[in-house]
């Protein structure tokens, strides 16, 4: 796979693997990310601060007082060549509860109508899909997941909402996401998930990682409340929703 090295100032460079949202591309990105992480474990990339995997590129941030682009770029190119696009480790599998529709998903009826579906059919399509976590971004812990089945693909809302509550499960384009924080947003709000996605006290503060796989399981408003209370009180741990690590 041809990789382009793009300028991103004097503290970063971006390794671009392609220009599409696809599982193949993101696997190449994650493989490169893991190769860099392994090299850093071996202290081979001094001056590298962190790497940020996205849909189709990997941005490496570095300290120009400790390493120059002229030294870093060939080191990264060598790592990519050695790693040879080796398939990344498979991600973890999650099954996350969602309360669809009603006050939890006020756009569900509109989404279904726009696609010529009943709300039940729209829920069925969403819950029957296994989603790949392409990347995290926008807000701490915010997962961009795909791909939605063709029958649920819609452009963003013409008018963004000023306030999507924490836990909002939303769709836009080919993607679905969960809002870890209350935020404005232009995605269609179809449900709510009671499992927190980010907590600064966790050893790894974001629940999901790029490469993880997520399925959604419909729950009633009563069950949503029970789960919310149990998670808030610490009686249930988010790891309870991990199917395979």
């Amino acid at each position, binding site marked *: 796979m041809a990789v382009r090295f793009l300028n991103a100032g004097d503290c970063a460079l971006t390794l671009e693997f392609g220009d599409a949202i696809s599982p193949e591309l993101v696997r190449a990105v994650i493989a490169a990310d893991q190769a860099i992480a392994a090299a850093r474990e071996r202290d081979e990339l001094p001056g590298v601060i*962190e790497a940020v995997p996205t849909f189709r590129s990997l941005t490496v*941030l570095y300290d120009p007082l400790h390493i120059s682009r002229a030294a870093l770029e060939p080191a990264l190119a060598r790592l990519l060549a050695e790693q040879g696009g080796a398939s990344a480790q498979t991600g973890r599998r999650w099954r996350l509860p969602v309360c669809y529709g009603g006050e939890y998903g006020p756009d569900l009826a509109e989404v279904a109508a726009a696609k010529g579906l009943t709300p039940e059919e729209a829920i069925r399509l969403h819950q029957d899909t296994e989603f790949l976590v392409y990347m995290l971004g926008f807000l701490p812990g915010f997962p961009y997941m795909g791909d939605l089945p063709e029958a649920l693909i819609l452009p963003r809302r013409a008018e963004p909402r000023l306030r999507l509550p924490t836990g909002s499960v939303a769709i836009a384009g080919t993607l679905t996401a969960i809002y870890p924080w209350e935020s404005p947003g232009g995605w269609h709000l179809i449900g709510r998930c009671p499992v927190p996605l980010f907590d600064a006290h966790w050893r790894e503060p974001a629940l999901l990682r790029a490469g993880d796989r997520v399925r959604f399981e419909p729950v009633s408003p009563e069950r949503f409340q029970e789960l919310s209370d149990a998670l808030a009180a610490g009686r249930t741990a988010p790891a309870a929703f991990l199917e395979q690590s």
Partner: protein
Amino acid sequence: MNARLEVVASGALATIQDLGRLGLRRSGVPWAGALDPARLRIANALAGNAQGAPAVEFFVTGPTLRAVDAPVRLAFAGDFPVELEREGRKMVVESWRSLTLQPGESVRAGPPAGGRVGYIAVAGLAVPPVLGSAATYTRAGLGGVEGRALASGMRLVAQAQEPGTREAILRQAPEQDGGPIRVVLGPQDDYFTEEAIADFLSCEFRVSPQADRMGIRLEGPTLRHRADKGAEIISDATVPGSIQVPGNGQPIVLLADAQTAGGYPKIATVASADLPRLAVASVGAAVRFRAITVAEAETLARQREEALGHLLQQIVPMTLVDGVDLEAIYQGNLVSGVVDALAPEHIFNALE
């Protein structure tokens, strides 16, 4: 021994910052941290702290801080007046020095000249790190005091000063850099027309009122995207200094609190040596850009760090400046009220 420092008035968006929360951008957590790290480091050095310790960053109108129960040493970096209330009198002292508040005394800092950001370091300021940093990131409630901007009534915990603490001063205030802001073109400069790149590098832009810790919107000529490329990309990572251009053609410079990924093409990235100067520029300030290579930008970064090293060596105890006992002069002025001739209330009224 601990001392408490009360926030009497919050000022405009005063937050606790340090050198940032590195390593979590992959989880969508921006670095946050000081918009002008060099000034935060100078403030801390003046206060006798480690350079990267947490300190207060403020915009335009500084907070009013009062020592509650023990002497607290503060230090000020940025070109702004510091109004001290001591024994019922108001006096103005210059920034770029430390100042120890006795219990009951208070200071109000700001507004900065030639920019919108100033720093107040507090000797021994204790702020528990969250994910490795005390930097406040309000959108996710991380760091600082309860993840929020300073608010009146909050109390900060600092180290009580022993009597006879000698104040520190920076012999010469750093000069403000001038000239165009240096940038490295890319990563998506190929999304723009030749005319747009030429306009970007030759025309004047202005800092719009939409400027905060996340970013600065600039106003200037419309930078057009190439028709065959469009104004959207598949989201990729942003960095502090990324200049993204949405469909309206008006650039946005991303800063410390900006989102870690974005879907607008990025025409260029500000050189790290010049980013603080742009990040703290006042609303309405004129900005021009000049393109340089990555290697040139790296050289600038090293030169800037070297210059800061020299500057930090210019911090001296107050009595040692050119053999003149400045401390005695300052104290004399403060006690006699000679500085009152500056009529601090007038200075503030004129500038606010």
